[in-house]
């Protein structure tokens, strides 16, 4: 966890009272679990808010929420007010209420934080450095999100032969992506789990090898010229994915592989209409996998379930109960060796905090925002 520019403090035990102001980017239109989220960002926001209220039902449900907060007022897609639940079994939250404003763009959220119009925001990883330079108080989690290239199922898309996958994996300059695209937020990824979680990430190479990639691309082209072409999809609403895709296209071109970045309108959709609207020739896309557990065995099991399907590496390995480091490493290595997924970077979650927020600690993988434990320093 990184905490920069912490302000002077005058007290220690948590104080009760105050309203925590939160701004999020997604416009959450429904907390009803039956209504699917339009984007991955909205799904994440719904999960965070739902966990606070422990109420996945509609705001007007008869049953009161049993979580740390109750819904007080809600304008779908715009704002949500939560009030502390005095009957929470773990104890009433320290703040009296939380006001959540939705649909604010990242740069607007950062500006609001600088102007003291809000207390808590999420910051996209590629803007974290900019935010820190602007003097925003930053908190970073351990790296718990994997950005990777996922080669897609040939039933729906143009297949990417294994030789191309291998060559592209060697062409990607992960260090440059982390240093320049992500502004040194995050770390290069060679495996599926970060070092702090598995302890064995250092065993996976993250270095590019342009010479070998070029040689492999030449061999592929000699067999079939179209095999050195790929259409790389990225979430059209995610500027970070766009930048990563464009950088990968540059790296691939150096190796003689033609990669065309293409925006994908809806992230993760598998309906027939969505498939029909996908870019022509799409055979690889950027995926962001948020690790859901602080236990490496559970995290790997979840990975295998997340990427289930004919195009995945299912069957390459199975995680036993109570796996040791060796079993997890071997499974990771087996999946990486198929080149169906090419890890690129591990990213932390980045948050911006106002000067009065106290006792905030970024959640561990699988945990939600611990806003019930946060308290506000009262300014004199």
């Amino acid at each position, binding site marked *: *966890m990184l*905490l920069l520019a912490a302000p002077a*403090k*005058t*007290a*220690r*035990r*948590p*104080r*009760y009272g105050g309203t925590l102001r939160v701004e999020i980017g997604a416009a959450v239109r429904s907390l009803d679990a039956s209504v699917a989220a339009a984007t991955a960002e909205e799904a994440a926001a719904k999960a965070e808010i739902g966990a606070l209220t422990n109420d996945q039902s509609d705001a007007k449900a008869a049953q009161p929420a049993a979580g740390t907060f109750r819904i007080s007022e809600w304008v779908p897609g715009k704002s949500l007010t939560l009030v502390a639940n*005095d009957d*929470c*079994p*773990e*104890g*009433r*939250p*320290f703040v009296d209420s939380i006001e959540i404003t939705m649909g604010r763009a990242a740069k607007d959220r950062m500006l609001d934080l600088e102007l003291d119009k809000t207390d808590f925001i999420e910051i996209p990883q590629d803007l974290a450095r900019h935010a820190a330079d602007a003097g925003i108080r930053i908190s970073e989690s351990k790296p718990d999100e994997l950005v990777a290239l996922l080669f897609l199922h040939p039933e729906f898309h143009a297949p990417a032969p294994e030789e191309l996958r291998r060559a592209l994996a060697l062409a990607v300059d992960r*260090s440059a992506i982390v240093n320049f695209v992500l502004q040194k937020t995050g*770390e290069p990824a*060679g495996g599926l789990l970060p*070092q*702090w*979680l*598995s*302890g*064995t990430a*250092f*065993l*996976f*190479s*993250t*270095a*590019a*090898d342009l010479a070998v990639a070029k040689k492999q691309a030449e061999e592929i082209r000699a067999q079939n010229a179209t095999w050195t072409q790929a259409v790389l999809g990225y979430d059209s609403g995610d500027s970070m994915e766009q930048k990563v895709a464009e950088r990968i296209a540059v790296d691939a071109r150096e190796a003689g592989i033609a990669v065309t970045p293409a925006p994908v309108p809806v992230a993760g959709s598998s309906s027939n209409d969505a498939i029909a609207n996908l870019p022509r020739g799409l055979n690889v896309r950027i995926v962001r996998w948020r690790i859901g557990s*602080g236990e*490496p065995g559970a995290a790997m099991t979840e990975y295998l379930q997340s990427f289930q399907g004919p195009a995945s590496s299912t069957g390459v390995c199975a995680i036993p109960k109570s796996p*040791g*480091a*060796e079993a997890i*490493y071997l499974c990771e*290595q087996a999946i990486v060796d198929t080149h169906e997924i090419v890890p690129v970077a591990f990213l932390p979650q980045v948050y911006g905090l106002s000067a009065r927020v*106290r*006792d*905030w*600690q970024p*959640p*561990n993988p699988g945990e939600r925002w*611990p806003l*019930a*434990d946060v308290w506000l320093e*009262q300014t*004199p």
Partner: protein
Amino acid sequence: MRPPRQLLSLSFALFFIFSVTEISPAPTQGSAPSQAPNGQRQVTPRPSQATSVPAAAAAQNAMPQEWTEAVRSLARKIKEAMGSSRSMTLEFQNISSISDANAAAIQSAMRDALSREHLEFSAAVNNEAVKVRVTLSEDHTDYIGAAEIQKGDSRKVALVSVTKPPSPNLGLTPAPALQKRVVFQQAAPILDFEIEQPLPNSNDGLEFRDVLTPTGLLRYQFQGDRLQLQLPDFAPVRITARNSRDVRGRILRSGSQEIRYFIGGALCVAGPVSNCSDNTILGWPINPKGVSWGAAYQAGRNYFQSSGIYSGEVRMTFPAFYSAAVLESGRETIFVLAALEGKALLFTSPVPSATFAGWGDDIVSLGQGCDTRQQILVTGTGDWTKPDSLQLYELDADRATSAGQPLQFSGPITALWPGDDGKSARVVSRDITTGEYEASIVTVVCNN
């Protein structure tokens, strides 16, 4: 790491330690990875680490016991991976929090184990030799020993894991005025604790530690040289008071058969027949050994409301407070309160006569100091994501002067209560790295 507030159960992993007088040096972290020319991820060893250790130095460092079997196992795996080859080069690096000394001992043991497997160490220039690199790494629960065996174009990896041992004990500090003695550690929250020395006429000489947790009281007893949880003494108690998110508790009187303690707004008695009752009206006795003064614990909160007290014939009404120190100097009783607005207020009359800024919310009186001035122990400022400290202040009329160096802790101090002798303090802190709670006794040493 977030301040955990798990409920204690008998199945929790508990770490039992003894009082010690040595401080273990804090382990250092490895450097960030970098890219090796051959494309393999490489971690730059820390500046103090060497890839080989002189035999004399290695012999001086005893290898951590938990690594004994792991080293043997890894050596066997390396031999298996080498196949028919017997000649190897060995590179060793440490990217974990294992200390340099222990890493050197493990390295030395590794070489011995490989020798016992009839493997020979070759000069680095020998291209026929199998290249083996052993790395000490870690995840959040285990240390990992990883061997990369490069034989020609073939690369194999062998791994062993070692569960991380309990955190090192922090004993007496070199602080000139304040000394700390750690008496207990555990993963679950500690609200207060007490040490019961053997009774004078006791035949068994048993020493107990009573540990107050958010769900009740536990008693530990020394069995030989280890502390064991003693179950049958106290019937389980169900806390009926509504919990606060920052629940506070205090043991106020103990005997061999019955212990009285407060948790939030509840008064509990632990003994052969245990029970808890609502105590929001009578409150906690703030100054049990002196001027009688009770303060009601605010339900669902973490502070006290005082109904006031008569000092002589003068009635004094106090604001809500987190903690208080009561000092009796001659005929005068001094009340110092850590008020909710973040300042400490000194009362000798109904109107505060002094305000102290920059103090934490937990304060205790340590009675008279080395030069007869009254002493107060004060926690540092900052929230529960930061290391904390204790600072001694000496009172002179309505002035408080810091005395000596602050005593540092590896995390926030979550509870501070006066010792029964009136000259020490019971301190509970939480290590922000490991998340473990630590119970310590702090005393003042007069340096001449």
